[in-house]
């Protein structure tokens, strides 16, 4: 295996693991559901993508097999994980979970109280 690809693969897998760790810290440290969900869905998606890409490159360079299922997994996670985050956040908002008390803006609430904007 070419040396430079070893470095790229190791870097990809380490970046993926680091991003997953950052996501876990975000879930622990952030104050409310929405910011936690933001950390979890974004950082974990990119982390898993990087790990899968590193796996794909490893098996391609080491054994010469193109594992299309890993590519499919990357596409699948890239499509579904943000949607899952969106659905969890919306379900939390609809069931009345309060925002962090230092939040300054709630556009969704504004839209419900004044359904038709009279301006313009």
């Amino acid at each position, binding site marked *: 295996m070419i040396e430079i690809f070893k470095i790229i693969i190791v870097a990809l897998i380490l970046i993926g693991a680091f991003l997953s760790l950052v996501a876990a810290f975000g879930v622990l440290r952030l104050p409310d559901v929405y910011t936690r969900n933001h950390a979890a869905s974004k950082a974990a998606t990119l982390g898993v993508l990087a790990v899968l890409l590193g796996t794909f490159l490893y098996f391609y360079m080491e054994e010469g097999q193109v594992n299309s299922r890993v590519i*499919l997994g990357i596409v*699948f996670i890239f*499509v579904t994980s943000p*949607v899952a985050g*969106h*659905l969890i956040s*919306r379900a939390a908002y*609809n069931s009345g979970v309060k925002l962090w008390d230092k939040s300054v803006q709630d556009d969704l609430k504004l839209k*419900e109280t004044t359904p038709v904007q009279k301006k313009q």
Partner: protein
Amino acid sequence: MKTNDLILQTTTKVVLFIIILFSFHIFFAGHYTPGGGFVGGLLTSGAIILLMLAFDMKTVSLILPVNYIYMAATGLLFAGGTAAGALLFNVPLLTHAFGHVDLPILGDTALHTATIFDLGVFLVVVGVTMTIIQTIGEDE
């Protein structure tokens, strides 16, 4: 309050084809790699359940007008038929045959009657899972 499922429904329409294709791949690759009828059937019923989550049950039964109990029965018939078919050739029950067949378009194809047995497993798994989900879902 009125909710808007546009994001979920659009994603479902895209993702559904990936899941169905992957389940068929798992089903057909079951002889040489991990997979087979059981996992393929579960993946297919998972795709149908995703459709039921994104849309509602009446819409899904319009798209897929399948009686899942009949589907499970057909699967049992396939499995039993493959088992009993061996008796016609004066060999013990569940003896499978295989060979290379020249098909018109596909060319030289290795065929095995265990695939028909696996298709039976596939249909039974899809049928039973969907029957369970439908029975629980329609209960009010």
